[in-house]
């Protein structure tokens, strides 16, 4: 009955998580670039790390959801 609550919350959470992870990566990267003067290096590293965190963290967040949806009997 209320089985939609958890998926809905997880999806809403995952969206923000993706965004935060990537943006934070870029922001930290830019900050590190400003400090060190190695202009694009850390920004690129930040983007890659942010994307990786978003991917892995998001996968972990959505995995129980996906496996549960997969388990559901076809109507």
């Amino acid at each position, binding site marked *: 009955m*209320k089985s939609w*609550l*958890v998926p*809905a*919350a*997880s999806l*809403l*959470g995952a969206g*923000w*998580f993706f*965004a*935060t*992870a990537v943006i*934070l990566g870029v922001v930290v990267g830019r900050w590190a670039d400003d400090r060190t003067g190695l202009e694009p290096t850390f920004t690129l590293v930040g983007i890659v*790390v942010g994307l*990786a*965190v978003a991917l*892995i*963290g998001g996968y*972990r*967040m959505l*995995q*129980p959801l*996906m*496996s549960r949806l*997969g*388990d*559901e*009997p076809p109507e």
Partner: protein
Amino acid sequence: MKIILFAVVVLAVLATGFIVAAGPEPHIVIPGEVVWKVGFMPITSTLMASWLAMAVLILGTFFMTRGMKLIPSGAQNFIESIIEFLYGQVEEIAGEKNARRFFPVVGTFFLFILVANWIALTPIFKSIGWTKDYGHEIFHEMQEKAEKGKVFDKKKHFLAWQVEDAGGVGLTQPGARTFKFEIHEGEDPADALDRYIVALAEFYTDFKPQADGAHGEGHADPADVEAAFAALQADPKAPKFINADDHAHEGGAEKHHGVTSHALGITFSALEFPGDKIALVYPFFRAAFSELNNTLALAIFAFLAIEFWGFQSLGFGYLGKFFINPLKNPILTFVGILELLSEFIRIISFSFRLFGNIFAGGVLLLILTFLVPFLAPLGIYGLEMFVGLIQAIVFSLLLLVFAVGAVEHHGGEDHEEGHGDGHHSGEGHADIHHLEQGAVQAH
């Protein structure tokens, strides 16, 4: 025909709204407005709102559960049904054993966020507060700079409303006008004062500046300043600049710093507003989670709770989720580090999600009330009630899901394919699982 009639009625209501209830231009501030200062600690409007939410919850629970009975009725019944419903939800996700541990925290988060979001939609919010007198503040800025003999080093923008004095209480009436003034970067206080005199005269009297060309360069025309000053002096309700010499004659012991006007050559030491003031309302209450500090506090606490439960259940084995021996599996080591990062990113995503939703809702309401005073904001109020509920659900459910993830043993090597890393280990989950299998068999 019906449609035309409907359209006419809607237009009439909107037009009435503009005539009767048009508000001043909204002023949007992101940090909470400081209501009081206790020692070094500023008490902001958002903090006041969270205290109000706490008071509502504590007093509500106290009065509704006084004289508890075994067979509940009335208010006690209401509270118990809420708690039972929430507990059922938590149990379904976390399992019976974990639910008893998680529920007090998760349930408190839910109720606190929900109440804080919903009371923010009541009319006392954002409407009652101190009036911050910008009319004087702008003059003080000039006084300070003139005293130090400096020019303004930063651009400053002021936006304030016409506030009437209603028996000692400042009142912003429908249709109140907005006063805007900008201090330019590198501007001399004397020049700023000239422009301020002109701006005040334009706002308070029907004075209109004559020279256009000089205005564009950020300097007021001397003739305009003189005319504006005369217009201000002539109108009894307009603000009065007090001449520094007159002030000295009145014999105040304190020394007043004057600002000399370029165009007039007179030094002014004070500014008085006999009629309407130019001020902004600094509300006592603003939606608690429309400030990042408050949502961040919740997020940090949620993070600590999750980590605490993780350590409580798994001991130091909990750290094994993040730090994996690179000799054993280098890829998992990397994944573990990223997972550690993602634990911390949760703090930020938790806080920004709640802050973003509530702040945006508040701004939307403010702007819409300004643009279309009647009817349209009603629908948005309904939407905001829904958003407040959804955000409370999302915050507490995510906290719960993360907590369940933190306390379960890491699947590691022996996890089943297709079932994730043992995410189903909660007892409640197992029950659902059985039920689902039963359903499959029944089909």
